[in-house]
């Protein structure tokens, strides 16, 4: 299990990277390497060129400007987990990151790498979906922005041109006070999510839902916002009946089947996890401990 030969490049500036992408054919970008290296070792991928972008400092940053959380594409998952900025601005990301692989893989894995690899179960993609993050791409013709709901084109295929690179991610934070939750079902700790659910939830003084975002990862080729369920939840009280109804609605989502996991089971899980996420998000929003 050794990689096939390739030509290795390690640009230190983003402009050099963009120029390089236009020059070479059949290149793969090496970010954290936790997804790419296995595929190279297994010879599932045989690129002529490997472009290591770990030396481009400008792609590693975490910053907050008002209600925008801006993260450079090469920011490591470890740094996101340890960041005080992320903790206060986007705690749900840190909850999600606890499920991402193992601490050894998070020491190398990056936000951008996860979003570009676009595994159907990717927790960071689920977070991006939850906020409908704005992704900034850089190419030979300059920059362009893509909202996350237009990012996945197909199974593991992002809206990224061959000469483009993901530069940074902007999460538009919720202004109002809200709760959050991220629940995931995995066979073992650190495994790919079979189904994961992210939730942001705001309630008013009477305990009615004023705003909610629900995203499901792992059920289909890309994370799905449960827009129908979200709409139905607005104005509802945060109680068992509401959550049960939302779970039932969520369980109708479009799900995929493979050699290991059936469509029906993914749907069942989605329902169960949506319920648990709503309960947890409510507790987080109101400060009252969850009852179940």
């Amino acid at each position: 299990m050794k990689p096939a030969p390739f030509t290795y490049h390690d640009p230190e500036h983003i402009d050099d990277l963009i120029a390089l992408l236009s020059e070479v054919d059949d290149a793969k970008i090496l970010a954290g390497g936790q997804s790419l290296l296995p595929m190279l070792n297994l010879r599932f991928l045989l690129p002529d060129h490997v472009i290591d972008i770990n030396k481009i400092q400008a792609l590693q940053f975490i910053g907050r400007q008002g209600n925008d959380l801006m993260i450079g594409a090469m920011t490591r998952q470890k740094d996101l987990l340890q960041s005080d900025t992320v903790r206060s601005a986007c705690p749900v990301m840190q909850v999600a990151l606890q499920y991402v692989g193992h601490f050894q893989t998070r020491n190398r894995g990056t936000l951008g790498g996860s979003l570009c690899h676009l595994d159907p179960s990717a927790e960071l993609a689920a977070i991006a979906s939850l906020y409908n993050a704005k992704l900034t791409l850089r190419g030979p013709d300059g920059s362009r922005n893509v909202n996350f709901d237009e990012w996945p084109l197909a199974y593991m295929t992002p809206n990224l041109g061959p000469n483009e690179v993901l530069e940074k991610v902007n999460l538009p934070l919720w202004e109002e006070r809200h709760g959050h939750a991220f629940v995931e079902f995995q066979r073992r700790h650190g495994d790919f999510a079979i189904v994961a659910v992210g939730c942001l939830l705001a309630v008013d003084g009477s305990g009615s839902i004023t705003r909610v975002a629900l995203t499901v990862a792992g059920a289909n080729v890309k994370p799905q916002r449960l827009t129908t369920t979200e709409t139905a939840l607005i104005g509802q009280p945060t109680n068992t009946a509401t959550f049960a109804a939302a779970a039932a609605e969520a369980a109708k989502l479009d799900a995929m089947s493979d050699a290991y996991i059936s469509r029906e089971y993914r749907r069942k899980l989605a329902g169960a996890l949506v319920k648990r996420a709503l309960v947890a998000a409510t507790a987080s929003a109101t400060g009252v401990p969850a009852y179940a």
Partner: protein
Amino acid sequence: MDDIKLPGMLQAAFLRSPHAHARISSIDTTAAAQLEGVHAVLTLDDLGPEHADRPMLQAYPNPRIKQNILPHLLARDEVALVGQTVALVVADNRYIAEDALALIEVDYQPLPAVVDCRKALDSAAPKAHSSAPNNLAASFSNTFGDTEAAFKHADEVYEIDFLQHRGGCHATECRGVIAQYSPHQDGLTLWSSTQCPYLIRRMLARQLDLPESRVRVIAPNVGGGFGPKAGFYVEEVVTAIAAIKLGRPVKWIEDRREHFTATNTQRDQHWHLDVAADNKGHILGVRGRAILDSGAFLSYGLLLPFTTLAPLPGPYAVEAVNVQFDVVFTNTTPNSPVRGAGRPNAAYAMERCIEAVARGLQLDPAEVRRINLIKQEQFPYATGQIHPNGRPIVYDSGDYIGTLDKAMALGDYAGFKKRQVAARQQDRYLGIGIGACVEDTGVGPYEGCTVRVDPSGEVLVESGAADQGQGHRTIIAQIVADGLGVPFERVHVTIGDTGKFPQGVGTIGSRVGVNVGTAANDAAASVRKKALEFAAKALEVNAAELEIEAGIVRVTHVPEMSIALGEVALRLTPMTGGAVPEGFTPGLEATSYAASKGPPHANGVNIAEVEVDIDTGKVKILRYSVAHDCGTMINPMIVDGQLIGGVVHGIGNALFEQMIYDEAGQPQTTTYADYLLPLATEMPRIDIVHQETPSPLNPLGLKGAGEGGTIPAAAAVVAAIENALESFGVVIGYYPVTPQRLVELITAGAGERCVEAMSTTPPA
């Protein structure tokens, strides 16, 4: 293995079949051979005419084998499984060797494949080997007692049907071979990650027409064995031939992707049993049939079927058994012992019988076991069965009810009902399950040992017993240190090298501790006796007045009258001009092949307490208790290590490890992303209590301990899950039990019959 580097060494890689069953019409190695850094590309024809029609020799011959089908060293005309070796590349390094593999062109014509062992004997089933008349490798039965009478007089008869899937080896170190040929010196030397260096020496010598004395096999420290490394593999032979041809050492290290198909794995067993019982819960008889999948080749002969058959009826006094075994070929990786070999399968079958009776008669499963367990006064207990090797099976000693009691106390079985009720009030589903087993260990014929005292006083011990982490050197040193009277630190043990110790058998079936322990004890006793006799003469006293402590022989209570063991050794090995004292042979050493008089039987009871999340099907093991009896424990810490490791392996079998093939025989589980091994986060703490009923079959009372943790584990976990989901009527027919499957069973709310369950895909 990969740590070993020899001057001039080259690296090898095998081209393997991508098809489960196919004809080969041509192999073109031209481009591969021309790649810079490649030294050779070999197909079967390149290995020499003597190998063209000589498949691998059977390491475990048996007259019951109907079709002794084994692979050619490299396939030429037909491949019968994904992963079968087709060609060998030898290059400067593995990177280049893999580049060359990609350049070899093979013309395959795919043939239909048979994958599900339950369909292998259907008249319409594809044949695993196109030239064979059918897929039947062997057929025989395990019969004793009068099952007809038992079923006639039964109050109740229960029918059970289940499929057992045991998963693969997955030692953290894959296999590996290094071959070096020195025609003018020692001949062929092979380093191999084998559990059985002496078996490899014998088989390799025969396969290559060499005398055994010109073949040396060294098993270095190996990173885990578990059974599949006890086989005789094509890679060992082909690497050796390459080394001979090229005149340079050749190394082949298996990578993990190869391991999934290239290393033998335990294959599926489908059982259908009828259980006859009286209305008090006594099992009067068991009859039925089991289909055992052998995979594409009979690489371990009928070893697995025999280790499945022999342990029936387990620790229970069941007097009538009639089970028919059909061993079949499929186009999948060949069957191999994997920790426990067939014993977990036999234990699971008996435990399913117990659970069926308990369920049917509404009795506590612990009580049903209590009623059926062999009683202390019945030992030594002849089960009524004759082992395929011709000897009646006799359990030497044990206190099976004592083991059950200990396990139940440790697991607070009595308090469980309360825990379960309290949990239900919180909408939580708890279950408890028991798995009991008997384990035949220490199979012969021998595993020798030499104990030699060096003039410096160091004690050198040599044995054939290879080690893959079991701590053999430690236990051997302990026994010799105790037996001879020397400090443990002064005993140095060398193992696993046919060039250093002349004869051996292998590390399998929890046999080494028992047999090497017996031999080491015997050899140490002989050395002790000789030392005492010499010292008696030298000190002019009676041998009975002497003791040996800390390596010094001295008159008890008169420490000035002493002679060190090293001095004795020195005086017994004089040089020119000296003389060996009258009545003594040179040297202070002894070799013994003393072995256990028969296979001692260990036994154990596992109790698993689980929680099942009925929304997701996730099973969490809350508590796990083991009561185990391996007779005299040489090293309790090592025994505990074997038990804990064994239990975790068994839990892996019960809940996680699944090797999936599709209908064309393509493995779907080919990396650790798909094949789930137990991780630290999902494993419980395992509580252990020991019982020691020494074996009368060897002087130290030893019984083996390597597999007793694994053997009843799946049974205990499955029973616990069923107990948790009793209100849904869940009865499990297949393991590993996946969360998805449990949700399906809970939703269906009915018992599961295994009819649809595929060995190749999870039950639909």
